Structure formats: structure tokens, C-alpha cells
């Protein structure tokens, strides 16, 4: 059966049998660098195109349809255009921090890729504290955002960065509590073990209503964390121009834009891994025949399918819900989501200890 695991294993085997260990490790690093950079570029192009196409379909229009077949090359053309634009630094800006900020946001987005399992055995680093690592590293991007807003010498940027920071750190709490409820059920922080624990069914279907509540809270929280509508106060066009990246232009703007879309992919990948079983095919209890048929679909297809379904969901939100006010946004988190998710965690723990889940 087709599997990425065999390809990666045979490449590694070939490397270590042909070269000495140091050389092989270096070559492996090189391959990973090439893969992740290519992945970043392709993912950015695909997600921006998807966003525009989904938005167009929601509003009963066609969306980009001129460049390439069905407008598929539109985002490539946009990237080339962005590369040819001049990157300005405003007068009186803190030049060092202004130029450093896009790098920090990009590094944070790239580092979170490490423990994500793209397919069976296709994972850069199966760290034993995977989930904790993801939530720790992904919050580093707040520093980049605050840095960008602070260094721009622009009132809109500073206000946008402040709002963005307050929003991201607030919603991180309820996202963290929903993640912990899955950690309680599976008893491990390691991504591969969490996926393995969903062998007989995904946690979303096995944990009764509390897990579904945790999933809904998780989706709301990550929508806010990635500054997506209806929580896109940080870049509310009618109030703050473009938020923290008002002063950025050319390639540096493109980096922020790319990091934003990569973050959407990452949070959806984490959501798919925790609640929908990652690359694990849809298994139902002891239905041997059904499980066997599902196993024929490659694990990478399962993972990407689930992730893109969640991404579609988040894009759908944007055209369904009106934008919240900043005080409504913060009271939603602190007065509703946080107490609910704390209580919900206790319920999930009770289910896990009593073994009431399926």
C-alpha cells in the first residue's frame, strides 16, 4: 500500500548506508530545509487562492479566473507583484526592530511545524512534549506582532498590535484548556501517541458532549488567535487601516501575510490531530471490514482532508458572522469561554477517570 513512511525510511536508509553519519545528517537537514521552504511557499499560494475562491462562492461570484486555468496562478502572479514592490521603512521607525519583526513571526510559524504529523511516520521531530511545545512556540509570534506595531512609528500600528496581543493571549487560555482535555483523555503529550490513542475512533466521537464542547471552544479560540474574522479587530479596516502591518510593504508585508496563513494551517492541523485523529483513518470500534476499507486511503490524504476541512470552516466563519467590538471580544473570552472551558475540563476528567468514554 502506498505510504510516505516507506519513502522517508528508504531515503534515510540510503543516506546512512552511502555516506558517513555526519554527512548523512547534514544531507538530511538540507532535505528538510528544502521541503519546509517549498511547503511554506506552496501552502501560502494555495491557502490565499482558497480563501479568495471560498469568499467568491459565498458571495455568488466566480473569484479570480483570469490568470492560468480557472485563476489557479493568480496568487503566484500576486507574489511576483509583491516581490517587485519597494519595501519602505517609515521615518522615525525603530529600524532594527522593524526589520526583525517579520523574521520572528516567520521563525515562530516554521518552528511549530516540527511536531506535526503529516502522515504515518512523516514527522520532523516526534518530541515527547509535542502539544506543550506547540502551544509554547506558537505564542512567540505575539512578540513579533507587538514588535512590528511598536517599531512602525504609526498610531494605527501600535493600536492594532495592542489589540492583537490582548486578543491572542486571552484566547490562548481557553485553547490551552481544550487541548488539555484531550491530553487527559489520551494520557500523553506526544503527538504520535495522541494519534495512536484514536485507533478505535476519533476523540470527537468518543467523548460524549464535553469533548464536543471542547472542540467548539477550540475552534472559536483559534479563530481569535489567528486574528480571523469575526475576531479580526486587530486589522479592522474601517478603524485601524491594516493593524500592526500598516507600514509594511513589499516582501516584508508578504512575509506577515504568509505567516498568518501558515498559522491558520498549523492551528487547524493541531485541531485535526487532537480531535479528529490526525492521519488516523476513520475507524469505528470493531467493524473490521469497514476499518480495513478505510485503511486503503493514504494517511496523508486523511490528514490534509481533515485540516483543510477545518480551514474551510474558519473561512466560512468570516462570511457568516459580523465583527465583534473589542469589549465584546474580551468579555466573550473572560466571562464565557474561560469559565466554561475550566468546568468542561473537570467534566472531561471525570469521564476519563470513570472510563465512560467509548
Amino acid at each position, binding site marked *: 500500500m502506498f505510504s510516505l513512511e516507506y519513502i522517508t525510511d528508504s531515503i534515510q536508509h540510503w543516506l546512512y548506508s552511502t555516506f558517513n553519519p555526519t554527512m548523512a545528517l547534514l544531507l538530511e*537537514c538540507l532535505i*528538510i*530545509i528544502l521541503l519546509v*521552504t517549498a511547503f511554506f*511557499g506552496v501552502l501560502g499560494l494555495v491557502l490565499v487562492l482558497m480563501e479568495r475562491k471560498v469568499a467568491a462562492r459565498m458571495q455568488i461570484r466566480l473569484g479570480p479566473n483570469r490568470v492560468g486555468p480557472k485563476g489557479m496562478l493568480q496568487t503566484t502572479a500576486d507574489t511576483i507583484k509583491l*516581490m*517587485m514592490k*519597494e*519595501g*519602505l*521603512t*517609515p*521615518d522615525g*521607525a525603530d529600524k532594527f526592530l522593524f526589520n526583525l519583526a517579520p*523574521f520572528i513571526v*516567520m*521563525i515562530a*510559524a*516554521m*518552528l511549530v*511545524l*516540527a511536531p506535526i504529523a503529516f502522515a504515518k511516520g512523516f514527522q*520532523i*521531530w516526534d518530541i515527547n512534549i509535542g502539544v506543550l511545545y506547540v502551544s509554547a512556540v506558537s505564542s512567540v509570534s505575539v512578540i513579533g506582532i507587538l514588535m512590528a506595531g511598536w517599531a*512602525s*512609528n*504609526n*498610531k*494605527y500600528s*501600535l*493600536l492594532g498590535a*495592542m489589540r492583537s*496581543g*490582548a486578543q491572542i*493571549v*486571552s484566547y*490562548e*487560555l481557553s485553547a*490551552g*484548556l481544550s487541548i*488539555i482535555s484531550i*491530553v*487527559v483523555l489520551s*494520557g500523553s*503529550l506526544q503527538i504520535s501517541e495522541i494519534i495512536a490513542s484514536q485507533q478505535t475512533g476519533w476523540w470527537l466521537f468518543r467523548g460524549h458532549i464535553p469533548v464536543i464542547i471542547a472542540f467548539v471552544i477550540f475552534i472559536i479560540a483559534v479563530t481569535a488567535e489567528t486574528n480571523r474574522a469575526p475576531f479580526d479587530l486587530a486589522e479592522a479596516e474601517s478603524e485601524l487601516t491594516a493593524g500592526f502591518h500598516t*507600514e509594511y510593504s*513589499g*516582501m516584508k508585508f*508578504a*512575509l506577515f501575510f504568509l505567516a498568518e496563513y501558515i498559522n491558520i494551517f498549523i492551528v487547524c492541523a493541531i485541531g485535526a490531530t487532537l480531535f479528529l485523529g490526525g492521519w488516523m483513518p476513520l475507524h469505528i470500534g470493531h467493524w473490521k471490514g469497514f476499518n480495513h476499507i478505510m485503511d486503503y486511503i493514504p494517511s496523508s490524504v486523511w490528514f490534509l482532508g481533515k485540516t483543510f476541512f477545518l480551514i474551510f470552516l474558519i473561512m466560512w466563519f468570516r462570511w457568516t458572522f459580523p465583527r465583534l467590538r473589542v469589549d465584546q471580544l*474580551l468579555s466573550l473570552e*473572560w*466571562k464565557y469561554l474561560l469559565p466554561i472551558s*475550566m468546568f468542561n*475540563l*473537570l467534566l472531561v*476528567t*471525570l469521564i*476519563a*477517570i470513570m472510563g465512560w468514554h467509548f
Partner: protein
Amino acid sequence: MGSVALLVLTIAAILFSAGGILVSKFLVRGSVNAQKGQPYECGIPSEGSPWNQFNVGYYLFALLFLIFDVELIFVYPWAVVVKKVGIMALVEIAIFFFILFTGFLYAHKKGALKWM
């Protein structure tokens, strides 16, 4: 692949960003203009410095976040072992959450969550 991955991914991110910026440097045909460097403010010249006072509310929320985030760090190791320890762990975390929640209610009563 081990912790080398951190270094490798950082290098990849820096190469990607720096490469993009460098390539665009070669493609750009910039122009010089006195007004170009001004901060954007909807078409009018910018007044004063942006680095002045901002709402104290952000600070309060940051403080509250700090308390709850430290709480989350305590909960992670608890979450891993809770199934083995059993019902006692649930009671203990319930007490922990109760104490935390009392403090949260105090902050709420004091109006820390009200947005001015």
C-alpha cells in the same frame, strides 16, 4: 530527528525570509520622494508621536493572562498522570480551580474586566 530540527527549521525560516527580501531588492526599481517615508495617517501629516499613553486595560488583561497561563503550566503535567492517579487528582484540581476562580471573581468584582 531530534532537537537538531529546531536549528534546521530556524535556519530554513531565516533563509526563506532573507531570500525573499534579497530577491525583491534586486527586482525593485525604487524612487526617491520626500513624502515617502512619512507614517501613514489617512492622507494628513502625522501629528505627534505614536509612542504615548494607551489604555490601561491592556495591562490588566496582561496581568490576568499571566496568572492563568501559569495555572495552565501546572495543569499540563497533571493532565498526563490524572488517569493513573484517579479520582483524588480530580478533587485536587477542582480545589485548585476553585481558588483560582475566587481570585478571578475578585478581579471581576473590582471591574478589571470592564473595557473603558
